[in-house]
């Protein structure tokens, strides 16, 4: 390994962790939902990269360690689901139907809103799977023939918005059922929202984790079924 690469890796790791720690501190201090730690840290890092004219590829290789942990971090949701298995059993049908309704609404509303606002066919197809977790969304986009980077942007934006809006929405519409809150967060804003749901409570987090898997798989199946029919 040459020194350049070691510098690259350590600089981007330290930058990421430090910015995230600062963002967590900011959100704890201000308690404003708009200062979502993920949103703030992504914005700050993007600004720094553009200002310092660091090539994006060198940052990406630098934070390879963090990206590699995304797999275990998603898989570990199984642990929180396992802890709530009794509630999952008793609420099996509501969770399944809720995810189904949510996925269909998400796909249809995203597609037709994009067409309505004149964003074009390409953007519409790429934003269609945006409520699912990133890997599923990318797979669905490649099935539909959309653009991967637009899908990624839509997925992240939706996730952050879900994390910001969902506690407010639950409060505004008096949704006190914790299972409903968790499933709704997981269906509309996948793993980024689940991080927020885990902050709200153990049960919400576990239900959100279930909803990621169920709604993601349902979206996948619906798209494949629709393609074979048409």
């Amino acid at each position, binding site marked *: 390994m040459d020194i350049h690469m070691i510098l690259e890796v350590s600089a981007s790791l330290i930058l*990421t962790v430090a910015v995230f720690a600062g963002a967590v501190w900011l959100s*704890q201090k201000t308690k404003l939902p708009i200062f979502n730690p993920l949103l703030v840290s992504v914005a700050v890092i993007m600004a720094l990269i553009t200002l310092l004219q660091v090539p994006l590829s060198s940052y990406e290789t630098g934070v390879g360690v963090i990206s590699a*942990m995304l*797999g*275990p*971090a998603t898989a*570990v949701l*199984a642990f929180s689901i396992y802890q709530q298995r009794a509630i999952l059993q008793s609420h099996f049908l*509501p969770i399944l139907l809720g995810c189904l309704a949510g996925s269909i609404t998400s796909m249809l509303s995203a597609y037709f809103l994009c067409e309505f606002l004149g964003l074009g066919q390409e953007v519409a197809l790429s934003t269609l799977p945006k409520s699912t977790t990133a890997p599923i969304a990318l797979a669905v986009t490649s099935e539909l023939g959309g653009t991967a980077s637009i899908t*990624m942007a839509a997925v992240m934006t939706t996730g952050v918005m879900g994390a910001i809006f969902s506690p407010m929405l639950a409060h505004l519409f008096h949704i006190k059922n914790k299972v409903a809150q968790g499933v709704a967060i997981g269906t509309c804003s996948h793993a980024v929202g689940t991080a927020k749901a885990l902050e709200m409570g153990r049960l919400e987090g576990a239900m959100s984790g279930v909803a990621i898997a169920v709604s993601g798989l349902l979206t996948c199946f619906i798209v494949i079924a629709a393609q074979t029919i048409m």
Partner: protein
Amino acid sequence: MDANDQYSSPITSAVGLEETTQPGSSQSREETSSFLPSQSDAKKDSDKSDEEDKFMHRLKIKQRWGWFISLCIQIAFLLGVCYVGNTIASYLPLPIPGNICSMALLLTLLLTGIIDAKKIAIASRFLLSYMSVFFIPAGVTILTCLPIIQNHIPQFILVCAITTVTVFLVTAVTVMLVSRVQRIVISKLAKRKSTKSHSFKLRVRED
């Protein structure tokens, strides 16, 4: 619900640690001390002799090292599960991603009792409480698509906001409605069952 604190973000969990140790509810105390080596224990022993102080200090370091080493071992195990999950996913005919496969694999391992949930508890709590960090690299890649949607950014954000709100409300309302219907159906079935068994008992008595 004090046990919830360990799932919350790093700083709130540190606050929750001090809160939960004071009332001393045994379960949450055990769990938090396995999650992070508790520091308030040392405060209580401040008036005791120096030797004990040194012993506590050594114990604390040992605990912290133990916590760190078991975290590393458990994360290594989880990475192994993910590797197997990714391999399974690549052989499946459907485009199901490796993450979901490894999640399903881990859940089956836990449900069948092949691995104990306690054995991966430390890494699970660690990864769950810092989950947002792992999405930062994915978020930064938005930079590559900014030139494509440059002229449509307000519309793009509007679409995301509207759909997020709609999907949240539709899902939450569906879950609540279906669970209410389910509860009514179950209670009706239970009533019917109880009346049936009641009449059956009456008939038996009449005989």
